[in-house]
């Protein structure tokens, strides 16, 4: 505890690697240097995070990207208005399946290259074969209904011609239980962040078939969700924290610090797992199962490519998926709520004094950048993308009605 800190901030997090930027801000002095006494509380469920934000135990928390939207759209009980002034990184998730499903997919042409289209085609052939033979539908798991995991899994399946509502089942399983559930045969596959994919590979009970970084390159994952009431009353504390998180994120991205970061996250109070199991997410070098391994570009970015900028287009894409899967109705009121949730204005005003490169726009056309591209920004040297969806689709947030209608017609054709 630093005596006499200008700001006291209490934050919740889940023991997942992508809480690293928040954890390092507290543990390595980035928060203290901004005059913040940052107290971190480890939680056991997203529901607890939501409840403790709602009753004011936490000022802010490590959250699933779509979770603040769900709070503001009234999809969850006991939720308070939550804003997103900072993103904790891009990518980091994988889809892992059982050995039995992998064998079935391999018989239909799957190879260990993580290509979403090829893997999806093989999975589709396997699912149709199982249906003809009268087998139960395959059971997949994600960590929460309002999660990037759920939406990217469904997006991948649907784009490969698999109806995630009818042709498979999707259950909710807490991340640390995924590998056990797969090994015990309670589920056939799952989508989760690291290290819970590599855990199944290391145990010899699963294969990684594709990754978030290939389904939608440089796509949003966890964010900082802050109580709006607190943020409105404490703009200076929030701005100081965003600067601390910025410095922390830059430090986390630097390969020279990966060993130390893995050591911090290994502590019992954070992940409580050996540093070695955290290296795949940091290096992007993954064992896929059966001896196959691969280097994945932009597997997880805690800082580079404007990873911390809370793009409104990211929030709006999550919103389109909430509509697509029946979580919320598409109305002008709901769209306005979704549009107001992510707050690039707060990010920009907090970081302006640092003179760092900041995107000039609040939204971008997702999927438009085929290669890494230097973009117009205040400050020097900002590179974005590539940000493509694997199926070549483009999400233009200014044409959201068309995008939602396009998804509906794809569903009815399936």
């Amino acid at each position: 505890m630093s005596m006499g800190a200008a700001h006291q901030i209490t934050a919740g997090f889940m023991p997942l690697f992508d809480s690293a930027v928040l954890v390092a801000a507290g543990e390595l002095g980035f928060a203290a240097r901004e005059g913040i006494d940052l107290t971190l509380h480890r939680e056991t469920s997203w529901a607890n995070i939501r409840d403790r934000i709602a009753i004011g135990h936490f000022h802010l928390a490590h959250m699933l990207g779509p979770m603040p939207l769900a709070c503001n759209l009234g999809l969850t009980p006991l939720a308070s208005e939550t804003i997103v002034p900072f993103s904790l990184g891009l990518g980091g998730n994988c889809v892992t399946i059982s050995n039995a499903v992998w064998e079935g997919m391999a018989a239909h042409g799957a190879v260990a290259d993580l290509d979403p289209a090829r893997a999806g085609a093989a999975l589709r052939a396997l699912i149709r074969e199982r249906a003809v033979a009268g087998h139960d539908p395959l059971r997949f798991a994600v960590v929460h209904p309002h999660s990037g995991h759920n939406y990217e899994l469904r997006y991948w399946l649907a784009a490969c011609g698999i109806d995630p509502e009818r042709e498979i089942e999707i259950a909710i399983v807490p991340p640390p239980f995924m590998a056990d559930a797969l090994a015990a045969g309670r589920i056939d596959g799952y989508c989760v962040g690291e290290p819970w994919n590599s855990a199944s590979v290391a145990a010899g009970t699963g294969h990684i078939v594709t990754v978030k970084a290939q389904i939608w390159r440089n796509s949003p994952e966890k964010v900082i969700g802050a109580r709006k009431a607190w943020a409105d009353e404490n703009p200076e504390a929030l701005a100081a924290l965003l600067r601390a998180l910025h410095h922390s994120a830059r430090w986390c991205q630097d390969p020279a610090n990966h060993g130390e970061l893995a050591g911090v996250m290994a502590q019992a109070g954070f992940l409580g797992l050996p540093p070695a199991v955290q290296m795949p997410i940091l290096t992007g070098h993954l064992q896929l199962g059966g001896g196959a391994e691969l280097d994945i570009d932009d597997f997880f970015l805690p800082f580079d490519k404007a990873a911390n900028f809370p793009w409104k287009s990211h929030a709006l894409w999550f919103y389109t998926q909430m509509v697509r899967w029946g979580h919320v109705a598409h109305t002008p009121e709901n769209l306005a709520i979704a549009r107001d949730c992510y707050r690039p204005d707060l990010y920009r005003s907090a970081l302006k004094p640092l003179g760092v490169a900041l995107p000039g726009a609040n939204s971008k056309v997702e999927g438009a950048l085929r290669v890494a591209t230097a973009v117009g920004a205040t400050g020097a040297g900002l590179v974005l993308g590539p940000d493509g969806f694997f199926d070549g689709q483009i999400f233009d947030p200014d044409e959201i009605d068309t995008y939602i209608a396009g998804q509906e017609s794809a569903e009815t054709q399936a």
Partner: protein
Amino acid sequence: MVRTALAVLVIDENRIRAAIIEAGLREAGHERVTVIHDVTGIARRIAEIEPDVIVIDLENPNRDMLENMFQLSRAVKRPIAMFVDRSDQASIEAAVDAGVSAYVVDGLRQERVKPILDMAVSRFNAFSRMARELEEVRGELESRKVIDRAKGILMKSRGLSEEAAYTLLRKTAMNQNRKISDIAQSLVTAAGLLGPAEDE
């Protein structure tokens, strides 16, 4: 007027705490109480029990799974919502502070549920108090054992009486502004490192 008894399901991995809650519910006249420690296969159990009220500890990592199941599963015939009486912020806070949450079937009147939640909150608090006290007692016992061993080492190595050995420990602790049990622990550790087994 006879009201149908409420079916209450308690989900808690901590068996002792679950037993305390169950006893409280039975004392309060609730006959239809089921306790589950392990959530494997819980959808089927919920379909069998058809609970009106579900009490769950907040340490349970399965809350997200359960909330999703309450909304979607065919196993749950009647929709289940979180116990939220927005007018009663204090009782929500008390529940979260105590580490417990409750879910109720739609349409169940708040006044029938509130006593159950209040009872769970007070029993959760009592359990935490008890666990804390037990921890303290255990700590005290441990330090007493360490002090005894340190005294033994001093008596043997410096030929002191038991009283003189204790006085020396106490003085050292006071001079260094540390706890006597810390000094004793350091001594026992050092003796273990330096000498042959001192009193084994």
